[in-house]
C-alpha cells in the first residue's frame, strides 16, 4: 500500500494519465487537417517540384538546377534585399510600437483603455488587399484626408508618393496600421497573466512605471514577444499583396518583382516555370523556419519550467 502511494505521488509530479478520451483532440482536429492539406502538403509538393525539370513533360529529376537558375536570376538578390530592408524597418517599429501601446494600456486599466484597445484593433479588420486599396487613397495627394502632410513633404501626385525607394516606408505604414492592433490585444492579454503579487512587490520595492515596465513586465512576457517576432518575420519575408497592388496604382512604375514572393509568382504564372517558382518558395520557407528555430532554441521557448 505504501509503494502504491509513493508511486502515485511520483507519477503526479510528471505526466498525468487521464482516464477516458481527451476531447482536446477534437478541438484541434480541424486546424490539424487544414494545416495538413493547405500548409504541410503544398510545402512538400513544392519541395518535390523544385527538384523536377520544368521543361519535360514527364517528371525527371533535375538536381539543384532550379535553385541555381533562381539564384542567378538578375532579380533574385535585389528581391531579397528589398524584403530584408523592409524587415529591418518594420520589425523594430512593430515590436517597439506594439509593446509601448500595450504597456500604456495596461498601466492604467480603465474604461478608456478598454475602448482604446478596441480602436487599435479595428484597422486589423480591414485585411489584405482591402487595406492596400484603402491606403492607396491615403497616399494619393489629390484625394487623401492627409493631403496637407503629403503636400508639406513635397508630393503633388500619387507617383511622387508611391515610388520604389519609398516602398519600405509605405509598406511599414500599411503593415503597422493593420497588424499592430491584433498584437496589442495579445500582449495586453499576456500582461494580464502577470500575477498581482509580483506587481505589488515591485511597487513596494519602489519601482516607478517605467522600471516596472522594462524590468518586470517585459521579461515575464518574453515568450509572447518571441512568438510575435516569429510570425512577423515569416509574414514579412513572404510579402506579396501590398507591393503587387501598389504597383498597379502607379501604372507599373514599381517593379512587379520587388519582393521574393512576387518573383516566384512571375516565374510560375508569367513564364510557366513552376520548378524555379517552387525553388524560390522553398527558400522562403527555409528562411522562415530557420528564423523560427533560432528564436525558439535561443530563448528556450518551449521549456515548461517556471522561471
Amino acid at each position, binding site marked *: 500500500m505504501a509503494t502504491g502511494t509513493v508511486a502515485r505521488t511520483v507519477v503526479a509530479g510528471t505526466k498525468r494519465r487521464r482516464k477516458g478520451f481527451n476531447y482536446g*483532440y477534437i478541438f484541434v482536429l480541424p486546424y490539424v*487537417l487544414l494545416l495538413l492539406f493547405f500548409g504541410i*502538403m503544398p510545402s512538400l*509538393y513544392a519541395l518535390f517540384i523544385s527538384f523536377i525539370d520544368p521543361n519535360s513533360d514527364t517528371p525527371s529529376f533535375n538536381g539543384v538546377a532550379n535553385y541555381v537558375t533562381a539564384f542567378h536570376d538578375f532579380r533574385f538578390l535585389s528581391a531579397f534585399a528589398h524584403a530584408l530592408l523592409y524587415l529591418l524597418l518594420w520589425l523594430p517599429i512593430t515590436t517597439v510600437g506594439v509593446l509601448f501601446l500595450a504597456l500604456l494600456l495596461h498601466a492604467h486599466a480603465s474604461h478608456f483603455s478598454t475602448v482604446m484597445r478596441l480602436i487599435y484593433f479595428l484597422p486589423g479588420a480591414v485585411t489584405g488587399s482591402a487595406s492596400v486599396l484603402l491606403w492607396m487613397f491615403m497616399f494619393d495627394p*489629390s484625394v487623401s484626408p492627409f493631403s496637407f502632410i503629403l503636400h508639406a513633404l513635397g508630393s503633388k*501626385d500619387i507617383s511622387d508618393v508611391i515610388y520604389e525607394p519609398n516602398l519600405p516606408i509605405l509598406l511599414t505604414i500599411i503593415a503597422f496600421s493593420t497588424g499592430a492592433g491584433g498584437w496589442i490585444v495579445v500582449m495586453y492579454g499576456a500582461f494580464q497573466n502577470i500575477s498581482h503579487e509580483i506587481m505589488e512587490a515591485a511597487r513596494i520595492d519602489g519601482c516607478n512605471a517605467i522600471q516596472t515596465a522594462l524590468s518586470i513586465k517585459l521579461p515575464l512576457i518574453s515568450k509572447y514577444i518571441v512568438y510575435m517576432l516569429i510570425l512577423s518575420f515569416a509574414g514579412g519575408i513572404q510579402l506579396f499583396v501590398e507591393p503587387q497592388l501598389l504597383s498597379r496604382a502607379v*501604372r*507599373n512604375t*514599381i517593379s512587379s518583382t520587388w519582393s521574393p514572393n512576387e518573383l516566384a509568382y512571375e516565374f510560375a504564372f508569367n513564364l*510557366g516555370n513552376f520548378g524555379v517558382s517552387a525553388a524560390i518558395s522553398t527558400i522562403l520557407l527555409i528562411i522562415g523556419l530557420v528564423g523560427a528555430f533560432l528564436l525558439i532554441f535561443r530563448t528556450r521557448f518551449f521549456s515548461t519550467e517556471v522561471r
Partner: protein
Amino acid sequence: MAVHPHSFIQQFRFGLLACMSLAMLLFPLASCGGSSSTDTTASANSPLLVWVDATRLDGARLYQKLHPNVKMNIVVVDRKTLGEKVLLFNRTGSGWPDVVFAEPNLVASVADKAHHYPADLKPYVSQDILNNFAPGTLTPCTIDGKLYCLRNDLAQEVLWYNKTLMKQFGYTVPTTWEEYQALGLRVAKEHPGYVIGSFGDESALDMYFWPSQCPVAQLTGADSVHINLADPKCTRVATMLDPLLQAGAISKFGPFDPNFIKLGTSNKILMEPAASWFGEYVFKASYKTPGGQLAAALPLKWEADSEPHGGAEGGAAWAISSHSKNPKAAADVAIWMSTSKEFQSTAVTFPAYLPDADLWSATIDKDNYYAENPYPVLKQAAGMIDPSYGSIRYDAPTAFDTVVAAGVTHGKTVASSLGDFQSQLSQLAQASGYTVS
C-alpha cells in the same frame, strides 16, 4: 489471462487516426491522377469555344447568326489572364479556347515551349488573303516562320493636332522630328501650359522610339533578339525629347493619366503623336476636344532618314488553339472575324485587312467631329508601320515604365535612363530564353 477491455472511445480514436493517415496517402494520388487523362468525350462536333472582349462580342454573335450550323460558345474574358489559363488547361488536359482575341505580343507569350498554345494558321489561309493585309502588319504574328494570328485591327501612329489652336497661334504642322522639337520649344516660351505630347507611360515607346527604328526588341530569330539602346537611332530620340520635357512642352504624365486628361479637357493639347484609335476613344471620349478642331497628319520623319516610319500602339488579332478538335472551323472563325466586310466595316478600329478599310472609312466621320476627314492620313500611315518591332515573350513596355518613365517622373533625363533600360531589357530577354546581341 487478463483482457484489457478497450473502451469504445479508444477504438474510435484509433479509427480516426487510421482514416487521417489513409487520407494523407490518398491525397497525392488523387492530385496526380487527373493530369494525364484526356477529355475523350469531346468530339469533332463539340462547340467551338470563342474568347472575345466586350467590344468584339457583337461581331462574334454576328458570325453565329450568319453561320447557324456552326456550334459556338462565345465567352467574354479578360485576355490578360490568357497565359495563366493556358498553363492551367495544359495541366488539366482540357478547356483551351478554340479561338481567342488577343494582341500579337500576348499570342507570342503563349507560343513558347511552356505554353505551346496557338496553331499555325498558314495551312488554312490562302496567300491572296494574306497579301491583302496592310504591309508588315502580319510580321508581329509570325514567329519562327509560323503564322500564329491574323491581325484584327491596326493602331498606326499618326500626328493628331488641334487645327484650330495651331491656326490661332500661327504655327505650321511639323513634318520632321527636328521641326517638332523646335515647335515645342517655341510653345513652351510663347504659350506655356500647352503641350505637344506625353511621356509618362509605355505609350512613349510606341510614339517616339518605334518610329525612329530604335532597336528595343528586334527579333533576329526565334530565340534571339537585338537590343541596343546606345544606337544613334535611340539616342537621337532622347536628345530630341529631353529639352522638351525640361521645358514642359511634353507632359511627364502618360496619355491616360488623370493629370493629362485634365490638360485635354481644358483644351491645352496642341498635338500628340498617337494611335489611330485615339481620335474616337481618347480625344473625343476622354479629352473631350471640341468638335471641328481635331485633325490628323502623317507620322514625322527624321531628317537623316530617307522616308518617315511609323509605330503602332495596340491592335489585336485572332489566334486558334493547337489543341482544337475542330481546327478548320476555328480557323474559319478567325479568318472571318479578321477579313469579313460584315464585321470589319462596322468595327470600331481601323481594319488591318485593307479591302475592308475603305468600307470602314464611311463610318469614321459621319458625325463631322473632325476638322477634316482623317481617313486618307490613317490609310497612308497604315502602310508606314515599321516592321522591325517583333512580338517578344517578355514584357518590354513594363520595363520601360519601371525604368524610363519612372525616372523621368522623378527628374532624370531620358538619355541617362537608356543604359538602365538596356540592361533591364537584356536580362529580361535572357530570363525568357532569348540570346541577346
